[in-house]
């Protein structure tokens, strides 16, 4: 009996010390499992960079033809590009110069998204799953008379936009095998603007909606206009950027050419002669070299 009673406490203590030892045998400087760098494994979940490329041009019917680009042109550029990307601390770098537009001109806008590895990822939006739940909208916000704090009364009518997305998304329309998605299936990675007003500055609010419920079409199967998304769309967005824009002059007629040159000069803080020389350099660029179509 005594042996039995002695055995129990010893057994209990031994088992306890064993369990305790199992728990505590590891060292205090043990390290956790090596962390995985998720930033490189799937570098395409969030955008690292997005660029907006504005190309001045004209229409052949409804097809946009871009003006030729000339590296010697400093002010009256056919192509302007503005980008947003993260710096090393993860903050979004905002551009310090605006996009400059001219009333009466037509501007194609091509939006390109890049992942953390610098790879183009536009195709993610045009996939069979994502295309019905993604659409870019273009809103005019905070429109003022140029260089004043006065509200611009015709803000709603400054821009018109036509969706010109292609299939495949990276093909140029008019090339073989490239077709238009059509106005019924707007994405907004490509499209062109008409500029209807002059002497205004505003923020071009580019929104990429990502719908959780339903699709981008209304109950009648029609898409929403480029500047009037349903409120229901705005809950989840993949992009919401405000691009500073200045419409600083208007396309000249014969009798106001001097004013046009003068306004270029004032906008870029150069002399009228420099502005006119730049304009001449632009218009004398061989037109055939303009091979951008949308």
């Amino acid at each position: 009996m005594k042996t039995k009673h002695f055995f129990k406490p010893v057994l209990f203590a031994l088992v306890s010390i064993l369990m305790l030892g199992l728990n505590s045998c590891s060292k205090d400087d043990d390290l956790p499992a090596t962390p995985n760098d998720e930033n490189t494994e799937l570098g395409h979940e969030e955008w690292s960079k997005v660029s907006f490329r504005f190309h001045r041009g004209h229409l052949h019917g409804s097809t946009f033809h871009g003006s030729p680009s000339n590296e010697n042109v400093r002010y009256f550029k056919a192509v302007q590009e503005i980008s947003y990307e993260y710096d090393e601390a993860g903050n979004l770098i905002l551009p310090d110069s605006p996009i400059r537009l001219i009333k009466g001109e037509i501007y194609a806008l091509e939006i390109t998204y890049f992942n953390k590895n610098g790879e183009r990822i536009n195709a993610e939006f045009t996939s069979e799953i994502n295309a019905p739940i993604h659409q870019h909208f273009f809103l005019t916000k905070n429109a003022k008379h140029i260089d004043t704090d006065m509200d611009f009364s015709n803000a709603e009518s400054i821009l018109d936009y036509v969706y010109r997305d292609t299939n495949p998304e990276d093909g140029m329309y008019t090339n073989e095998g490239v077709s238009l998605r059509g106005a019924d299936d707007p994405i907004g990675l490509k499209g062109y603007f008409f500029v209807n007003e002059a002497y205004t500055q505003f923020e071009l609010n580019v929104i990429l909606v990502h719908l959780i419920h339903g699709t981008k079409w209304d109950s009648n199967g029609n898409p929403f206009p480029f500047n009037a998304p349903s409120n229901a769309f705005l809950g989840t967005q993949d992009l919401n950027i405000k691009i500073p824009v200045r419409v600083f002059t208007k396309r000249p007629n014969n009798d106001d050419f001097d004013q046009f040159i003068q306004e270029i000069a004032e906008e870029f803080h150069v002399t009228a002669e420099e502005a006119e020389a730049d304009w001449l350099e632009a218009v004398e660029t061989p037109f055939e070299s303009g091979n951008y179509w949308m």
Partner: protein
Amino acid sequence: MHYYKMLLLAFLLLPIVVFGQQDSTTIQLNEVVIKSVNLQKSIYQAQKVSDFIQQINTGKDLANQLKSLPGVQVRKSGANVSKPIIDGLSSSRLVYMVNGVKLENQDWADAHSPEIDADLAKNLNILRGAESVKHGSNALGGVVHVDAGRISSNKNINGSATLYYTGNTRGRGAHLKIQQNSGLIQGFAWRLSANNSKNGDYHTADYNVANSGTSVASYRAELTYKLQNVEIESFYSNYKSKQGNYFGTLTGNVEEFEERIEHGQPLVTFPYAFKIEAPYQESTHQIANTTTTWKFSRKWFVKSQYTYQKNHREEFDVRRSVSSTVPVQDMILSANHFNFELGFKNNTLHAALGVQIRNKENYNQPGTGVTPALPNYLYKEKSVYTHHTLNLNQWLLNAGLRYDWAIMNARGINFLGQKYGENKNFSALSAQVAAKLATEKWDLESSLSHGWRIPESFELYANGKQHGIPIYFVGNKDMSAEKGTKWMNTITYKAKHSRFEFQGFINKVENYIYSVPTHQYKQLFSGPAAIFQFKQQDALLCGIDLIHSSTITPRLEFTNKFTWIHGEEISSKNPLPNISPLRLHNSINYQLPVLGDFEEINLQIGHEWVGKKNNFNPDYELSSQTPSAYHLFNIAASSRYPINQKLTLRISASIDNLFNTLYKDYLNLHRYFVHDSGRSMNVNVQCNF
């Protein structure tokens, strides 16, 4: 360093062997000893949720079942995710004890509920006078006990089956318990429990809140074996929950974000849905535990406990490039606990000496494509403690000491691809003293406890947007441990037909950790997120609960509860964020023993008033306005209906927010964007067999 700790532990274990041998000749009085030792008894008076409240709240989560208790408020994220606050403190400042096991939770953010199924509990209670010595680090605010109760001694298979319906969310659920004290093997008993519930979107008084459904599926198996003076208790539990995240808080730019806060409710609402879609969170918490208690002499016992826990948390978001079924957060927290306690008890003294080892590891599963919110980390804690309770006629006196050593080694890679983390060491002394005087008319209880808490890895290393809402948390890796000293007092006066209770506390917390908005925004491509920065400084919390109940007639009882709580930074006197405004609760209970075939009829009309939060620091809020005061009325009824001797029904029905009031609560993190829950008619039927 390591060896001397092991030596110390071995030294502490030595008395067990020694005392075991010494008392080995006096073991004949086993039966008497077992009845006289009550290991659960404590000077710290637990406050228990009544059976009636538990019955009418079936299907609600833990926090909503506890909120009837003084000192408890609810921290919500929407109306479907909530966690209890005790005396102004929540999350890792509370210890959750589930069937005697310290829960290792993954509730580092406000949007995470404790992984506990309250419906499977028989006893829900809290300790406000924190037993920091017994329960260890983290018990700064209090302890929540969720206990299944002892298995019935009935030799036949018995149990209960319950069906319940929650009107507001059109939710339904069922739970089943069966148990038996086996006649085949003497001393052997078992119990199986299961609960399954699902709720759709919740409704405010005016609109539906999209994607706010929840589901819970939990199972538990328990075995106990008792042979003479040894009792072995084992259980395994598996709790799985899924909670939808309201997505209407997301916006595109800072102006819209501020406009949305200003608007205070969704711009667009969606029709009710039962299904939960991304974004949502899913967590599975498994516990396996064995506790052995051996009363090896008339006055001595030893208790050994081993627990393994595994939590798997996944958070899902709306994703574009990969399927939404690939989680954005996927982490496993596994933990091992070993507790050993040597106890002594006679008529005047209850003493215990214990050691505890607590190891846990967090591991982020690769392949999410999103930077984890937490680093991988190892946490190891070793503790020794002793506490003593002296019973002197009307007096109960208690004192205890505890020392903890802990390390936390963390390693992670942030969203910029940079490595972070380090090895941290902590150690601290905890202590408690308490006294209780019980007379015929007066009960006086006072306790002073000093405890501590290591910063959560989220508080140290957070650098990312919280799931569901556009709040971007930034941690501070240089923060040190919190240390709290809480003085809790309870004075109860018992008159013939009335009872008055005063509960008051003061809690001075050194290095109190909290997050406040910086009023700057992190511009993410998915829109702006308000930056919240973790900070640390000394804080003072204090509060008073006044409780009065009067028996107007033998069947009619009137109860009033008033709660005031205040928290401030000691240096600046600025109010702390997330401290409840004034609360008042009144209820009238009417009880009827019999009405026709119905028995134990209980009717209750309740009223709750919550004041407007006035003493707040606007710098610590996203909005300069706090929600208005509101009144809520509730009614509830419960009755027992015996079908035959072996079968009875327990039926209850209730209506919450009777007048469908549209309201917001200051303690709801989503108050900036949506309202709280509207009217809900609830029914549950329990069949006991």
